[in-house]
């Protein structure tokens, strides 16, 4: 919102934002072993982008992550999730029955959970960024 934020704010954010994004990826891919998963990772990633937009101005954030791209990501996550369900049906199983994806049933479950958590993360992150962009644009 304010491109002329204070020097300290800008420099601290330069250090913090990459760490937040890295943490979002950790939460996304480590959610099977510790607390976390697609919902949390998506929100944390969106928070990093929103922090960037607040400190450096929304236009600058939109140059890196344009509104159009975010809108495609909203649909892409849902399609990936539902696509896994359709793929399991085509392979002869029930909808979202991951056991048919691979030979070993634990590996198959791992792959299925990995893919749908990715779908959830992409959709949730993109939705939060899109809602922020839209409200902020309306603000002007």
């Amino acid at each position, binding site marked *: 919102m304010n491109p002329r934020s204070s020097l300290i704010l800008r420099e601290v954010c330069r250090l913090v934002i990459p760490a937040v994004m890295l943490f979002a990826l950790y939460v996304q891919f480590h959610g099977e072993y510790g607390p976390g998963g697609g*919902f949390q990772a998506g*929100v944390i990633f969106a928070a990093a982008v929103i922090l960037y937009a607040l400190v450096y101005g929304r236009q600058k954030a939109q140059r890196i992550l344009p509104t159009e791209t975010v809108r495609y990501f909203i649909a892409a996550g849902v399609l990936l999730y539902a696509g896994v369900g359709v793929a399991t049906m085509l392979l002869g199983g029930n909808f979202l029955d991951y056991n048919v994806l691979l030979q070993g049933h634990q590996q198959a479950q791992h792959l299925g959970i990995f893919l749908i958590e990715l779908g959830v993360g992409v959709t949730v992150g993109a939705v939060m960024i899109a*809602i922020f962009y*839209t*409200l902020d644009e309306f603000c002007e």
Partner: protein
Amino acid sequence: MITGYFNYWVVIILMMMGFYIVISDSNLIKKIIGLNIFQTSVFILFISMSKVKGGTAPILIAGADVYSNPLPHVLILTAIVVGVSTSALGLAIIAKIHRAYGTVDETIIHEQDDLQDEN
């Protein structure tokens, strides 16, 4: 008795205070915040029911055999994210109302509507 039901009672007090904001305040943004408080108190009710005394978080590790119930956690986890999306939709409608009426106060909006009906 007191410690066994304390959680539920505070949840109900929080729920009723959220409900009070929704029905008594005329500012639409404060109504949304009241709804959020109501919603979070329902989340606390569900998680209170999932707790097992002496249990630990439902992440399987060696050396722990009592875990809290994971099912309410799943329900509430998704409900929180759905909740923020629906609040955002409500806030978008409020922004639209502000553009149309120039206010977010319910009483003034009704007055404006009545004036229009008379004309």
